[in-house]
């Protein structure tokens, strides 16, 4: 569905995308993860043909981009990071106006709009102004708007950033339905639970390059020990120095917490019983642990 080879984009002296390779299959949900500045949004803009790459090639449903970007965009629906619904229009008018940008006929749009309103759960808000909508409703409308021309592939740039948990679940539900209906989805996010929940496969990007790619479970199994014991409290530094090395496969201190990665959590917990002043949390390792291991823990701004 989407093949990207050796994609490069440079701004001034900064390489934002450096030799990116991606392959997204038809009907799959593909996650693009990465810290801020990893090149996720630039990659999406390149895929849409909005900016020209300095090197590399993009093929979307067999259409080369940016050469035939207009044609390619007929097949893509976009949910941008920042809401850009038309504030001068009602909910319904937003969908109608957007359909026209795809060259849809009035009749085609009129049959489509009620379906989209239903999909977004906004049937009762059809005539509401955008300013009257909650953040979650706006996102759902943006998602519905991206579907107006029934695209084959959907690009979502951080679709649930800034939403409360209820609203996020509603978006996820909508995306699940689209995946079940056979749509291809490319999703950028920095919520690991979102990626773990939705993505069939994902790529972790850093410094404009794919660091690792695979199914979430496979990545966790192959890149990280199965369990984590997070240790914190009085006397942590002594424990880290004297004990951690012998019981943890890999240990990392972040702030006031020691992350002890292990395939034998019992052993760590037994050792911790000798240090009653320390508190700990034992949990299975997850995608976030992989992400932090591969991209580091430094703050990115």
């Amino acid at each position, binding site marked *: 569905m989407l093949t990207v080879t050796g994609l490069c984009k440079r*701004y001034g002296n900064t390489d934002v995308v450096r030799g990116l390779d991606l392959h997204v299959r038809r009907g799959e949900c593909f996650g693009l993860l990465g810290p801020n500045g990893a090149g996720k949004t630039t990659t999406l803009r390149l895929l*849409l043909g*909005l*900016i020209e790459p300095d090197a590399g090639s993009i093929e979307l449903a067999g259409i080369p981009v940016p050469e035939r970007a*207009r*044609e390619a*965009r*007929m097949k*893509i629906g*976009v949910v*941008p990071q*920042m809401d*850009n*619904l*038309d*504030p*001068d*229009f009602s909910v319904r*008018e937003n969908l109608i*106006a*957007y359909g*026209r*940008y*795809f*060259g849809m006929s009035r009749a085609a749009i009129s049959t489509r709009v009620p379906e989209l309103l239903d999909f977004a759960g906004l049937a009762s808000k059809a005539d509401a102004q955008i300013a009257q909508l909650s953040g979650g409703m706006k996102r759902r409308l943006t998602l519905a708007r991206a579907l107006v021309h029934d695209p084959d592939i959907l690009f979502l740039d951080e679709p649930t950033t800034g939403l409360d948990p209820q609203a996020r679940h509603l978006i996820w539900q909508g995306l699940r339905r689209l995946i079940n209906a056979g749509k291809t989805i490319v999703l950028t996010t920095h919520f690991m639970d979102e990626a773990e929940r939705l993505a069939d496969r994902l790529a972790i990007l850093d410094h404009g390059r794919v660091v690792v790619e695979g199914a979430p479970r496979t990545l966790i199994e192959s890149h990280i020990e199965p369990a984590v014991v997070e240790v914190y409290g009085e006397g942590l530094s002594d424990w880290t120095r004297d004990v951690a090395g012998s019981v943890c496969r890999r240990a990392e201190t972040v702030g006031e917490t020691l992350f002890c990665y292990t395939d034998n959590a019992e052993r760590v917990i037994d050792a911790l019983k000798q240090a009653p002043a320390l508190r700990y949390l034992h949990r299975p390792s997850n995608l976030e642990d992989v992400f932090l291991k591969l991209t580091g823990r430094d703050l990115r701004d």
Partner: protein
Amino acid sequence: MIKLPRLSWRFIPVWQRNYLVWKKLAIPSILGNLADPMLYMLGLGFGLGSLLPDVDGMSYLTFLAAGTVAYSTMNAATFEVLYSSFSRMHVQRTWDAILNTPMTLDDVLFGELIWAVSKSLLSGLAILAVIWGLGLYGNFWLTLAIIPVVALVGFCFGGMGLVMNAVSPSYDFFLYYFTLAITPMVLLCGVFFPVSQLPPILQAISAWLPLTHAIDLARPLVVGTVPGNIGLHAFALLAYGSAGFIIALALTRRRLLR
């Protein structure tokens, strides 16, 4: 570096979008855009006109009415591509949303330009209606030729204004354009008094300004004569507008698509 615009009929949905929004607020919008120049024209025309002898062989009201056709058209196009286009581009991010569809920036900008021409037409027609109503014209059929002139003036100032839109960081920036370009033109191009009253150096500058060309076309048509140098004036307006549009497209591309 500068790529020529690739125009297509796809600009129509952009025009339509602006039209639908305008339709919702048509009454206040018409009042804002049209009442203002009309009040100036009638107030000054009657008030000041009663103190003045004929100007260039016509009543001052007629003189001013002909200037106002061009002036209000210029303002309508300028305001549209400055404040309204800027809202859509920068504040509401409407253009970003459109660019994610098969539309290109060329389509969006051309749609905005044609929309500005439409607003100009409306504004020019309103003044023309007053000219007809008060019988300020010499030959009715010739006044009909003012309609394409008005469209051309809208094109000219729409294209030029889009350059300002492309480089502006905020609404405040537009004040420079008004103070340094629009207001001097209003005073130098023969809206309120004949250019011949100006010192020679200012007359020479005036001859290069687009509003002068607009007025040189509009005023004879109101009075009832065929304007001289039609080709030159039309070419000047077309050239200013096209150059503006091409530069604006290149600058907007740099602003949004990088």
